[in-house]
């Protein structure tokens, strides 16, 4: 096998619980899967802290990336019957699907918030930098690595190709909805992907869906809606996420103050200082995070020690529903009481909002920045999905925002010290919930 863009002599398959089999026929794809940067994704969970809520959610970005590749492979196979592709564009699609998440780090949502980094930027650097992935892609010649990076960044000239991997209904979302539903064990993430792929039709800027397949698309939208509220936005998962972020904030602050760590976070130093190299980034994975969190359970600093124990032993914060317009009236008093009770409100009193999530659900709107889903009508015209579907229309206009206030109830219930302040805090928090 000499040609890197050639077919393998024998097809390789991966068993997969979601798609049954993942088929690899191209040498390029097989070689990309074997790179160390792609193998690293085995050590990064797809759903971050969700495993603390749904114990089955231990699947990784490796599984998901293979799944997105497989859906893209099927899409390309279907679309090839209806359109002609430029040279290499089939492989650009497949490689982009496989590599779209390669820049994700461990618990990347929290890391990105605290350190102001961007996994998409790391994806680009891994694809274009001095890496095994770049070496494999470069064998294709020309600007192949740049084309793959551009598709993932949504700046590739061919919008149809971009839309297959990143749009309101794309290979990425279809895989993560099905996969996350499977591994969390929830029953409401299912939809008929085969049917959706069969009714997909290529247009200049995006793929559209034959009107006859509308009900399969409706199911997909319902799945997205249900998974958003029931899994991605689960309050317990968010509690773990809040604690994780606070651990990182605390470590960052202590380091800036010159605190003498028993276990210095040397793997994060360059991240704290915004000087992290590509090689250092590639070496970061969840095992390193857990190593530090476990070591920090013995630190002198009481806040860092407590937060790490909470995260590792799943002693999470409790929450109450929060209406910001009412919360603002009691916020200064809550902060004062927390401080008076010896509990630092910067780490133990947190509002988490729906806008803090990296997931969304379908919003129609012809003039929005995001291309809506279009149906191909029998007369050849296009109609936005919610204008044809009562189901989609019904869930599109509903309240979509939510805020929760997180706090350590166990500390507040232990009233041996500062009993008066703690009782007052609990009373204010529960009044807030009843408002």
């Amino acid at each position, binding site marked *: 096998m000499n040609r890197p863009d050639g077919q393998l002599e024998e097809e390789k398959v991966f068993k997969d619980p979601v798609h049954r089999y993942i088929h690899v026929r191209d040498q390029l794809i097989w070689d990309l899967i074997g790179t160390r940067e792609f193998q690293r994704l085995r050590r990064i969970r797809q759903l971050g802290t969700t495993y603390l809520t749904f114990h089955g959610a231990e699947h990784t970005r490796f599984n998901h990336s293979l799944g997105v590749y497989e859906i893209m492979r099927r899409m390309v196979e279907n679309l090839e019957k209806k359109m002609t592709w430029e040279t290499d564009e089939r492989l650009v699609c497949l490689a982009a699907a496989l590599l779209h998440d390669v820049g994700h780090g461990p618990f990347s949502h929290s890391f990105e918030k605290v350190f*102001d980094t961007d996994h998409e930027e790391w994806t680009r650097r891994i694809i274009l930098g001095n890496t095994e992935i770049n070496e494999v892609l470069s064998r294709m010649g020309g600007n192949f690595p740049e084309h793959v990076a551009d598709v993932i*960044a949504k700046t590739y000239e061919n919008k149809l190709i971009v839309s297959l991997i990143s749009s309101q209904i794309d290979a990425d979302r279809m895989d993560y909805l099905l996969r996350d539903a499977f591994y969390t064990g929830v029953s409401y993430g299912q939809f008929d992907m085969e049917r959706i792929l069969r009714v997909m039709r290529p247009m200049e800027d995006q793929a559209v869906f034959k009107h006859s397949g509308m009900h399969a698309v409706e199911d997909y939208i319902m799945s997205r809606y249900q998974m958003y509220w029931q899994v991605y936005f689960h309050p317990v998962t968010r509690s773990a996420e809040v604690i994780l972020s606070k651990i990182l904030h605390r470590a960052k602050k202590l380091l800036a103050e010159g605190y003498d760590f028993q276990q210095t976070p040397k793997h994060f130093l360059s991240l704290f200082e915004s000087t992290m190299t590509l090689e250092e980034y590639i070496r970061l994975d969840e095992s390193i995070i857990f190593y530090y969190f476990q070591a920090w359970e013995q630190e002198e600093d009481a806040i860092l020690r407590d937060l790490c124990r909470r995260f590792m032993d799943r002693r999470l914060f409790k929450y109450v529903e929060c209406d*910001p317009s009412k919360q603002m009236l009691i916020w200064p008093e809550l902060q004062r009481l927390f401080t008076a009770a010896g509990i630092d409100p910067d780490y133990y009193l947190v509002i988490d*909002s729906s806008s803090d999530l990296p997931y*969304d659900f379908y919003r129609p709107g012809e003039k929005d*920045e995001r291309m809506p889903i279009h149906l191909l009508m029998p007369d050849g015209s296009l109609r936005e999905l919610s204008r044809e579907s009562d189901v989609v229309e019904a869930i599109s206009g509903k309240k979509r*925002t939510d805020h929760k206030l997180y706090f350590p109830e166990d500390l507040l219930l232990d009233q041996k010290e500062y009993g008066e302040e703690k009782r007052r805090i609990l009373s204010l928090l529960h009044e807030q919930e009843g408002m």
Partner: protein
Amino acid sequence: MLHEHAKLLSLLKGTGEVVGRKKLQKMVYIAKKMNEPFREKYQFHMYGPYSEELTLRMEEMCQADFIGEVREKKGGYYQYRYEIADKGEEFLEAVRLPEGTVNENLLRRLNESSSKFLELVSTVLYFEHFPKEEIKAKIGKLKARQNYSEEDIEEAFSYIESLRNSH
């Protein structure tokens, strides 16, 4: 408490009102590129850099009655007009952002430009790590429908330079 929301409210308070969702998106992106402390994450979309996080935050503030959103019919589509509401003013008071957190002069200046021009400026900024000629080529390909002229693109470059020099 909700500091990122408070920064957006400061923006609206400082500018009076912002007309158009797209314009607001581009104003925040450009301000962020000018090192203003907005934290919303952006990706490249149909009209250039776009933040889903910003869209959701605005929606949250509409539902909390912190901002007023007026939907107006304009030609074949709807346009949205945003301004801070009384409850939003009260919230800003409660949060007490440090003085000068948001650069009002910069934001007012951005607000004076058209949404179409800010779309071009934000797209240039999105690709600014590329050589100038390559940026022009990308705009030609990705923004073909907006039909930006060579002069428009040069004006965007000058505008960015003047923003950087004066803020």
